[in-house]
């Protein structure tokens, strides 16, 4: 049985950063991912990474912007840590080889981003996430002696010992279909978000909430799950992302009547108000009939000098051309709000520890909570790196002086039986997996989107339950072992349905409007009753349990939020 001090599931930025930190702390480390690490969704974070690194900027200012952006639901102790450690982390990245944009003096240069009171976003053209991900992978290739890589291995569950501590995982080697039990003193979940529970979404097809559901199933509470970020600029139909960098560089938003409507909703910050505000404004314009017939508004990037666009926004020039047939340097592009990010996730402390001893979570899979009700652009890369590193260090520390646990072989047999049963399901009896997934995504995007209400959420809840039931008999075509992506699709569907259930329950529970959650039936923020986190925990086969936890306040009292 392979055994490692620290076993990391997911190899995006959080996972790779955790691996490098844990290896640096002397632990024996392995990192496992269902895709090759450079295929991870961190690639998609185009715009940049925030840090108060300029002498005239301060971490307090960055922290306040983040607190305000979170609509005061973010935990301020965690936000302080993230913003304090951000400058050091950006410099560390630079030293590892990230090709950050420079100013004319050859120093790190910045761009403006939404919801921020200073230009503090460091970037590599509009491929920042990709550049970071590939540079960290360079470091993994360099450290191949201290970090083992299991690439294209799919985790089916986290294993606990008799005392309830996490002691390893069970995973399937996608290449040959073999199942293996891995022992680990600490397990770090870093497997990203659950955007595929929505359709369309900016999220990659791999973002199926695996880690969120794996932790949830063994009893870890999920926090702030109702907080789903709709990004203001996504392409209609396929949901492909147009980076916030476009607005950072000076692009404007117009409705079909040619009005720059953000003047109405955020007179000071305009297009660079926080994402929840801009998305809601766009959706209001569209709902009130001032959008285009395809249910969109226009993003006008022609305001940005063409040369600058080609240099700094090259990727979206390509995206406009290849995925919308529009030359964004010459004409506006139609966009709408689209599912983008889940602020919620597995509840952790500031070291990434979940409620289950030995189980950590970092990155989008986790909820520390630094994003609260709404994440600021360019804070997600930061979140993955800061808390990935902290989780890696803490997990390595925990492993010291511990003996290697020996997880029970029975769990392996159970998982093998589960997979065999899926493969044996009778074809044509139930529904196709793709049908269920499609219905789930379309429904979530209709009823659990920018604007929500009791009736819609109640229906959503009932539909998720029905789909969960139908998923039990959903059948597949592939009976093979080599790259059987079909059977993995069934397991992923189960993960997405668990996430969707928690999202809907959180949204039903929160009877107020805060951050990304806007309830038409409770349109005001209600600090007296709802300035608290909502936690959803699994409860055997019964209805999941709801509980609350306090929001940690350090120095910023809730204020009215205007941009």
């Amino acid at each position, binding site marked *: 049985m392979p055994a490692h001090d620290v076993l990391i599931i997911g190899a995006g930025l959080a996972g790779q950063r955790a691996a490098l930190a844990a290896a640096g702390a002397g632990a024996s480390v392995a990192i496992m991912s269902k*895709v*090759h690490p*450079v*295929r*991870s*969704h961190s*690639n*998609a974070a185009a715009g940049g990474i925030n840090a108060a690194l300029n002498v005239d900027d301060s971490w307090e200012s960055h922290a306040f912007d983040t607190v305000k952006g979170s609509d005061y639901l973010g935990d301020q102790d965690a936000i302080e840590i993230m913003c304090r450690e951000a400058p050091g982390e950006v*410099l560390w990245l*630079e*030293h590892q*080889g990230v*090709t*950050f944009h*420079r100013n004319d*003096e*050859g*120093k790190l*240069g910045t761009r403006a981003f939404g919801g921020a009171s200073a230009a503090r976003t460091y970037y*590599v*053209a509009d*491929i920042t996430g*990709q*550049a970071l991900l*590939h540079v960290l992978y*360079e*470091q993994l*290739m360099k450290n191949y002696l201290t970090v083992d890589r299991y*690439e294209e291995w799919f985790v089916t569950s986290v294993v606990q010992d008799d005392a309830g501590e996490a002691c390893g995982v069970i995973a399937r080697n996608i*290449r040959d279909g073999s199942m293996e039990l891995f022992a680990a003193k600490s397990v770090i979940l870093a497997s990203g978000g659950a955007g595929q529970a929505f359709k369309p979404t900016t999220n*990659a*097809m*791999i973002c199926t909430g695996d880690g969120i559901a794996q932790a949830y199933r063994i009893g870890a509470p999920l926090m702030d799950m109702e907080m789903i970020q709709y990004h203001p600029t996504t392409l209609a139909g*396929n949901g*492909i992302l147009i980076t916030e960098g476009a607005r950072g560089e000076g692009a404007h938003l117009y409705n079909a009547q040619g009005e720059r409507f953000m003047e109405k909703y955020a007179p000071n910050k305009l297009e660079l108000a926080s994402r929840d505000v801009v998305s809601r404004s766009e959706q209001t314009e569209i709902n009130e009939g001032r959008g285009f017939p395809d249910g969109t508004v226009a993003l006008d990037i022609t305001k940005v*000098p*063409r*040369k600058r666009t*080609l*240099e700094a926004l*090259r*990727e979206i020039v*390509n*995206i406009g*051309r*290849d*995925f919308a*047939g529009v030359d964004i340097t010459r004409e506006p592009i139609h966009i709408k709000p689209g599912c983008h990010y889940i602020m919620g996730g597995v509840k952790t402390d500031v070291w990434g520890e979940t409620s289950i001893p030995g189980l950590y979570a970092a990155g989008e899979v986790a909820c520390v909570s630094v994003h609260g009700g709404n994440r600021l652009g360019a804070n997600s890369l930061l979140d993955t790196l800061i808390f990935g590193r902290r989780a890696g260090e803490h997990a390595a520390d925990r492993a010291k002086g511990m003996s290697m646990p020996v997880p029970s072989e029975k769990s392996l047999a159970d998982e093998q039986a589960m997979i065999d049963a899926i493969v044996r399901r009778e074809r044509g009896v139930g529904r*196709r997996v*793709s*049908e269920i997934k499609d219905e789930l995504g379309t429904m979530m995007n209709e009823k659990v989107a920018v604007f929500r209400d009791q009736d819609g959420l109640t229906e959503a809840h009932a539909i998720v339950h029905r789909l969960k039931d139908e998923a039990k008999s959903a059948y*597949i075509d*592939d009976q*093979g072992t*080599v*790259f*059987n*992506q*079909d059977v993995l*699709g069934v397991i992923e569907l189960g993960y997405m349905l668990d996430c969707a259930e928690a999202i809907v329950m959180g949204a039903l529970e929160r009877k107020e409007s805060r951050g990304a959650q806007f309830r038409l039936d409770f349109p005001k923020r209600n600090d007296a009753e709802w300035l608290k986190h909502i936690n959803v925990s699994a409860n055997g086969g019964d209805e999941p349990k709801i509980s609350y936890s306090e929001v940690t306040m350090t120095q910023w009292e809730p204020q009215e939020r205007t941009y």
Partner: protein
Amino acid sequence: MPEYTLKLRRYSPESGEPAYWEEFTADLDGHRSVLDGILQIRDREDGSIGIRHSCRAAICGSCGVSINGRPGLACHMHLEEAQKRAERDGGVITVEPMGNMPVLKDLIVDMDAVHWKKMQRVTPWLIPEGEHPEREYIVPKEAMVDVTQTMACIQCGACVSHCLSMEVDPLFIGPAALAKAYRFVGDPRDGQQFERLRDLSEDPHGIYDCTHCFNCIEACPKGVAPMSQIMRLRRIAGSDHGIEDRNNGHRHENAFVKNIERNGLLHEADLLPDSYGGKFHPRAVPELLSSLPIALRGLQRGKITPKKALLHEHKAPQEVKDIFQRVHGHDTRFELNLYVSGKDEEQSGEQDNHDIVEGAQAHGTPSSSSAERSPNSV
């Protein structure tokens, strides 16, 4: 909805059967991608079709395939465009796994066995000299923009798939890994520029193994232009560091350029001896002797005549001389770069030199102006 016929190359290693073709129909808007078409077929008809995929937006590099004989990302090719290109095949969009790599199942290839192994070969991490500075490294803005072109590589393997040199020499380090090598050689923070270049020059499967076929530039969905990066490595190695490799690559390249400058058309009889320092150079003698059988066969079959072999009558016309003069006349080398290739027509006052990275490297490269080119907009 328009209908598209997709012919997929299927292979299941467990079946014991050889690979076979299977046709399917997808009905989707023509602006949706070939990947969307395949996923629709998977969802509706046959979930066992194997293809790696994730982002759908040409950034994760998972879905490298060959479409009607041309490598690229399945998510980056519109169905209608693919159909148009497939006219010769009766409009059937034919999708098969990438080349130069073993097939694992259907459209999935073993990238570890080839692509990633080669990547590891070029020491793909930054090796700075000395301790890190307290703050960031201060480096020219242009240098970072310059290496960002190679950072734009998403490791999809499309260039490796259709690399002709690799087909002939499977040990060739190849376009993707050598482009990655440039990412460090071109990075002023790296302290091993000379060592890297010597290593890649001396390796018989290194930078001089490329035959300039342009396939990788055509294949790359991100405009990385791997061949241009290989040529830059050669120029920096040969011209800036004076690295005379044991493969005779650098001398051969110089001999080739001089040959054209002199003759306008290649005079092959001179090329070989000149590559080894001239007809009477001790290094050239064994090479000339070893090429005698080929020359004799050529004579026998009338491909070579003694007159042609000894006297090259063609002389470089003035136009060719002008080109050489212009290129040699520059103080600095010009390199085209993806991230600075856009001309600002609106601001015609702005000079063209912004569109070119001035700096370390040599004579104009074969164009890497693929910034404006996409497989979908040719």
